């Protein structure tokens, strides 16, 4: 049946075809049934703030489809993008686990479906199903790894082209599967961030991002068509990145 905006809503976790490929959702059937009974499913347009840094934690969001930007505010009041969360991740975990305010603002980057579970229900869910706690521990381990990588990249004080190349390479790890893709070395990616947001990621200005991307295009390393970007020369980008 055709759906509004071509958005396919996953209503039933037990019937979700993606769950085996997702870090959190690949749970035993019993736990999935419980998840189904405690979650509230909603679809959010691009730009929705799911939670705000400093806000008392109300619960977690399981990102079913779409992507979201996690950002925090530096001591100087500047916005720093911590990472981009992909479908299958649980957002608001640390705050919910430690009963502290949310430590990052989460904003959807595209129309997204998220399942909300309230703070108390989630903690009860974890206590009742150790397999869920294990998944949460795995996700937190992954998040810690990402945070340490980001810390290392801050310490490197590398150049802006290097940082942008690094971003492109990390996005290239989740390529788009485009029909009729001719050359195997071309990697298509979907970029829904604005140049201003990329600047927040790379710690530079929007103008510099624009200039660096133009340079990449001029060199034949990158092609941009709307939200679809194609990495044309991955080895060149890799060479630019020192770590």
């Amino acid at each position, binding site marked *: 049946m055709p759906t509004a905006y071509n958005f396919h809503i996953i209503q039933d976790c037990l019937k979700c075809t993606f769950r085996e490929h997702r870090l959190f959702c690949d749970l035993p059937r019993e736990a999935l049934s419980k998840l189904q009974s405690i979650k509230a499913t909603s679809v959010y347009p691009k730009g929705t703030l799911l939670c705000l840094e400093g806000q008392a934690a109300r619960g977690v969001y399981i990102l079913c489809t779409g992507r979201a930007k996690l950002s925090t505010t530096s001591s100087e009041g*500047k916005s720093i993008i*911590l990472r981009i969360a992909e479908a299958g991740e649980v957002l608001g*975990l640390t705050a919910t686990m430690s009963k502290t305010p949310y430590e*990052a603002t989460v904003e959807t980057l595209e129309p997204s479906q998220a399942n909300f579970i309230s703070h108390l229900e989630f903690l009860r869910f974890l206590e009742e199903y*150790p397999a869920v*706690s294990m998944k949460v521990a795995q996700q*937190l381990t992954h998040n810690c790894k990402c*945070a340490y990588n980001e810390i290392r990249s801050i310490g490197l004080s590398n150049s802006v082209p290097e940082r942008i190349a690094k971003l492109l390479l990390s996005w290239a790890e989740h390529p788009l599967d485009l029909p009729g893709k001719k050359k195997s070395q071309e990697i298509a990616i979907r970029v829904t961030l604005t140049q201003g947001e990329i600047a927040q990621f790379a710690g530079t200005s929007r103008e510099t991002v624009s200039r660096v991307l133009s*340079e990449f295009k001029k060199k034949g390393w990158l092609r941009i068509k709307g939200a679809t970007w194609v990495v044309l020369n991955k080895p060149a980008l890799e060479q*630019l990145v020192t770590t």
Partner: protein
Amino acid sequence: MTSSDVIKDLYAGLPDKLRQELAVHEQAVTVPEGTALLQCGTYPQQLIILHSGSVETSVLVAGKPLSLGVAGAGRVFGLQSILAKTPTDTSVTCLEECQVILVPKKAFLDALRRNPQMYLAVAKLLSVDLQKAHGFLRRNGRRPGRRGTSIPRSRK
């Protein structure tokens, strides 16, 4: 949170028999100032629970340590690496004489496998690590600047 609280949380709900088994493996050690409890890039063989004293945690950046800050009693080190079976991201060095409780990796993982309810406490400990890392990013996030904005010629 003290080291006793950490152990209490971690082992909460474990059968007495297993708790006693783990206690046999635990080793309380006093180490002098300057001891490297954990070294970046290595695989820790023990879970390290800081009982007293203070340590400095750091990450290696281009071969040089970048300090993440000072940690005190109750912090647990090596957990992330033991769980993910990957080399540790952080180094931990004693800033003074410290008392630590060491739990061998194998004994800990065995206990975890047999008692998955321990994962809840593990997740809480990992949340603390993540909050510390995010705190560092908040304090030291990249500042916009114009230095180094062009592609080096040699790499063209």
